[in-house]
């Protein structure tokens, strides 16, 4: 009973917040509703008694959206609306809804055919984190390590891109000369 009420509440809130993310013209509303939606998604994990995954969702996406905020701060004036080229919200709504529906059908169709069965049933007595760890380090060890390697590659390339001339000052030599000339004048 409570679970169903909570499920529908979280569903409506999540979909509503993500709709705001897509449709709004204000960068601050978009980012805030994105963050709120991510937090509500963790509610589904808690409903399914996957506490660990729920908390991980919370921590990871709070940090991730925080980084997005930083970019929004650099590129936009957060208190003003953004001028968009396509002004038709109905078109965005229709296309987004259709794509979402298609995705749902694609993923649901094979599952609807036969009854859902868990491939790796949870082990008796093992906690949430232990179950995730067991599957991650036995069945899915290779994808897990490959993902870790990809993140490492991304991090190193990021450092190289950003840190090429970190020892030099950001003001170029010409700027310094111009400044000096202005002082002399």
């Amino acid at each position, binding site marked *: 009973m409570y679970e169903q009420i909570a499920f529908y509440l979280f569903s409506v809130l999540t979909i509503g917040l993500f709709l705001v993310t897509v449709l709004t013209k*204000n960068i*601050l*509303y978009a980012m*805030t509703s994105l*963050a709120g939606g991510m*937090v509500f998604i963790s509610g589904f994990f808690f409903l399914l008694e996957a*506490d*660990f995954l729920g*908390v*991980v969702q*919370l*921590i990871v996406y*709070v*940090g991730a959206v*925080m*980084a997005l*905020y*930083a970019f*929004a*701060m650099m590129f936009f004036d*957060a*208190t003003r609306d953004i001028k968009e080229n396509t002004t038709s919200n109905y078109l965005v709504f229709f296309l987004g809804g259709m794509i979402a529906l298609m995705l749902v059908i694609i993923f649901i169709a094979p599952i609807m055919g036969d009854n859902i069965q868990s491939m790796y049933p949870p082990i008796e007595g093992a*906690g*949430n*984190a232990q179950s995730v760890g067991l599957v991650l380090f036995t069945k899915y060890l290779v994808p897990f390590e490959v993902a870790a390697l990809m993140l490492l590659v991304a991090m190193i390339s990021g450092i190289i891109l950003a840190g090429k001339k970190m020892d030099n000052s950001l003001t170029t030599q010409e700027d310094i000369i111009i400044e000096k000339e202005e002082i002399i004048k």
Partner: protein
Amino acid sequence: MDATVLPEVTSLGVVIKAIIILTIISAIAGFGTYIERKILAFMQRRLGPTHVGPFGLLQIAADGIKLFTQEDIIPQNANKLIFQIAPAITAATAFIALASVPVFPDFIIPEFIPILGGTFVPSIAADINVGILFVLGMMAAGLYGPLLAGMAQANKWGIIGSARTAIQFLSYEVVTGLSILAPIMLVGSLSLVDFNEYQAGEFTEWLIWQQPVAFVLFLIAGFAETNRTPFDLLEHEAEVISGYATEYSGMRWGMFFIGEYANMITVAILASVMFLGGYNDLGFIAGWFIIILKISFFFFLMLWVRASWPHIRPDQLMWLCWKVLMPLALVNILITAIVMMI
């Protein structure tokens, strides 16, 4: 803990617990401002509040009346909705984080009270088995309050404040996570109750003796997490007026500070449960009393540090977290793992 079976936790008990946490922690937050001013004054050879009531005690009431009756100003160009909900985010997440830490001891409401009599009120409102991660995640989400407040208020000091929030978050978060990893490996659980039971007995069992590095790292990251000096970049008066809180007044401003004090208490509880033996009995001192002593000590430590140390710059915080504390935490994890394997 005891062999006696604990009574069943009812939803009524949890609701009562939630109300108790809300009221008492809010009151402590108000009282905390008085204590903070008195202790800072004592350390800096001043008197602090003296005029209102005995020892200036009624200063809390005066401040409260001021906060409640002050005009609620919303700046002209601000994003009104976000500006209004930002303080609520800070206060709400601080109290949600308190839901899954043990705050006061279990007790049963006496029978003679009508309706509520006989209800069992648990020590933890929501006893989930990933308690530590949940608390840290919620406290991290609390930083959305300053971030949104700064961005919504159409004020340059506010924008600087929220940019510093992002910097602070990206700096300390990795240190908090890595520093508690080593104790978690030792205990083998993410539940605060398991942490408490792991350290039952004499004070030689406390995790601080096994993990002194992790304790210091967690404490430093905790200072950054609660925006206490020396890491209060967000509202550093000398540099950015009041940072994210520049345009706020009245109760909305007050909510930021209730949230901040609630977070201080949460960090104090986490540090005492994870490293200092939690709410186990120590000799002849009862458990519920010893944890209040520990929490008070950490609260005092935060004020002590504030009185003793200057602020640091944002780049110094990043340097400290990424170049000093994170390698230390990694080395600590490696050594712990090697010792555990042998």
